[in-house]
């Protein structure tokens, strides 16, 4: 992967940021340099760690649930053609509704706290993972299956050596998208109704008009999300290139 283009892009973004700061001033922005400084301060502040771990734990659990449930829903739907045909528009409709709308319902079910956050993250991630998993299985070349039959492969053999490699690229794409969406969901949940975590800190900083804190947290979240996504994307592309 050429490193020159992404590097140019990153530099460009920082330049634009700096220019905006020069135009707008301290009333609403901080410079990239001072934001980086605030962020490093924040990261070394012991009172900050519990918030990061809160978000991280909630996200990890939500994401894990999204992967498991998403695959459990998507894979069989891909295999059973009619069930898949019935389910697809329903899944697509679920994908497009603003899931934020369901947050109060979840809060009513789980109360404020970790379980609700995990649920937020999970519902955001489940739908794309199941849609991609369904398509991954659907698009397995039937000739592969017939070849396996001719070679008289056992079911386990067939699954491990044909089905999994064939479906893996699309499944990984779904997991990548689910990762990002689960993160957004966890964060959104914290912004809406929580007393702890990065999302909450962000809202708190907003009400206190603490611009440095807002920028530092935003930078942290953007770098984390973009960074992990870039790694997953590289994996995604490698798998698709092989396929």
């Amino acid at each position: 992967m050429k490193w020159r283009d992404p590097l140019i892009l990153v530099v460009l973004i920082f330049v634009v940021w700096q220019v905006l700061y020069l135009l707008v001033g301290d009333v609403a922005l901080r410079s990239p340099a001072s934001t980086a400084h605030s962020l490093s301060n924040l990261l070394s502040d012991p009172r900050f760690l519990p918030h990061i771990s809160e978000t991280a734990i909630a996200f990890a659990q939500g994401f894990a649930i999204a992967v498991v449930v998403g695959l459990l829903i998507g894979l069989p739907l891909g295999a059973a053609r009619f069930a898949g045909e019935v389910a697809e528009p329903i899944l697509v409709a679920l994908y497009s509704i603003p899931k934020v709308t369901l947050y109060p319902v979840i809060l009513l079910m789980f109360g404020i706290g970790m379980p609700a956050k995990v649920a937020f993250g999970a519902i955001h991630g489940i739908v794309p993972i199941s849609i991609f998993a369904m398509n991954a299985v659907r698009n397995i070349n039937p000739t592969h299956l017939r070849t396996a039959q001719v070679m008289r492969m056992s079911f386990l053999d067939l699954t491990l050596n044909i089905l999994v490699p064939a479906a893996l690229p699309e499944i990984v794409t779904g997991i990548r998208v689910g990762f990002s969406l689960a993160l957004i969901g966890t964060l959104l949940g914290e912004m809406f109704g929580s007393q702890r975590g990065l999302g909450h800190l962000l809202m708190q900083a907003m009400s206190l008009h603490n611009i440095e804190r807002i920028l530092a947290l935003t930078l942290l979240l953007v770098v984390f999300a973009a960074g992990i996504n870039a790694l997953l994307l590289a994996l995604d592309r490698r798998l698709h290139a092989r396929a």
Partner: protein
Amino acid sequence: MPNALIVRIAIVVIAVGLLELLCRLGVIPNFTMIPPSAMAQSLWKILASGKFSHDIAATLVNVGIAIVAAMAAGVAAGTALQGWPAARRTLDPLFATYYAVPMYAFYPLLIVIFGLGDFPQVAIGFLLAVMAVIINTLNGLDRVPAVLLKTARVHRLGPLAAAWRVRLPYAAPYVFTGFKLAVAYSFIGVIGAEFITSSRGIGYEISFAYNNFDNPVMYAMILFILLLVITVNMSLHVWEKRLLSRRRRA
């Protein structure tokens, strides 16, 4: 082979019926969820009384602005980028990573800069929607066959005329996909932002009702959004099929 549509409708009806039963029987307590029939009733009352007309109008207007802005900016940017491969290559990582970034994280920043009016919500909706339009416009323009580009030149069309009369019309199905996404994302962005913090709008009213333990109102408005978004998306789907049927081999 039973009709997929009928099975789907049956599934939805059964699910709603089950919910209704569980709520009425008290298995799901009333302070958690009210029966779907009560939700519908409450919604009907609210719409009839016009109590939230202001909010509904505000939200719809904001969503509309976000969609129009995203389409205009997105198609223009996509068309421009398609003719500028160097810029497109540089921006490619941005396209790939854009939707991974929690866009809502910028919401507090926007509020601090622009205040508590409607602009930050529209901005979030716009930011979420515009990239989908750009990506799909690019995808469509990439697929214009060389022979049509040559035909445009034979007809002596300048670059702007060629884009407007030949390239974009050819790419229209893909631009429409971008449009569908723009609609979905604008709803998600605007309503999500209204939830987080706002002074009016459907999202705000739901949040307010939640904080005041007003389940009938809250669920009514949630139902309203769900129905609205699903109806809009289904209509777009039908419209798309009709537009594409002309282009399909008979």
